[in-house]
């Protein structure tokens, strides 16, 4: 079945450093979504990417969808302590209604 993997599993950074998480799907995706889950919380929707090669920005966050629509990345510039949490990508394959979540990258930011 469809699998979505993320690397790294964990990332510890000093506040102000940049952070990137990578997402890879075993199948070509119709779209990919990104979510953030704070410790003890539930996933919160950040963004959806649909087009091959698409790049979207939200303030310090930059999201990319690969040309082959099988991979994606999230880059955070100048991390802040409020960025702490686990970041999940979630992919939707063609001809399916199953949104499959990735394994997640847990970000810890030290002041």
């Amino acid at each position, binding site marked *: *079945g469809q699998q979505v993997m993320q690397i790294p599993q964990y990332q510890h950074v000093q506040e102000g450093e940049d952070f990137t998480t990578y997402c890879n799907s075993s199948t070509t995706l*119709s*779209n990919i*979504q990104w*979510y953030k889950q704070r410790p003890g*919380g*539930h*996933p*919160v*929707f*950040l*963004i*959806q990417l649909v087009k091959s090669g698409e790049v979207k920005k939200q303030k310090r966050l930059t999201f990319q969808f690969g040309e082959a629509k099988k991979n994606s990345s999230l880059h955070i510039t100048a991390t802040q302590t409020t960025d702490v949490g686990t970041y*999940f990508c979630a992919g*939707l394959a063609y001809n*399916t*209604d*199953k*949104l*499959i*979540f*990735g*394994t*997640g990258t847990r970000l810890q930011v030290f002041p």
Partner: protein
Amino acid sequence: DAGVTQSPTHLIKTRGQHVTLRCSPISGHKSVSWYQQVLGQGPQFIFQYYEKEERGRGNFPDRFSARQFPNYSSELNVNALLLGDSALYLCASSWWGTTSNYGYTFGSGTRLTVV
């Protein structure tokens, strides 16, 4: 406007028992999805319902079942509980299923502990 509401918030059950978890989506949302999240892992897809019809099923045994009611609320039922069913069960609602530009809105979840 209320968000996605799940009940109960916490639940302790004994092995072999049955459990019913409930979810009320955001008003106007017609799609509900259920996920199981074990501590330290990503949410695992269980079911998706849209307009009261099952649109997707994940790799879970037949002990797991769900339904969506005319008011778009949903129930997740798990029979013959096992210790491994202990997890956070998340409900998510959206406008058009998986293609909404607004993504899924998750509830706070039901923490199920099987002893």
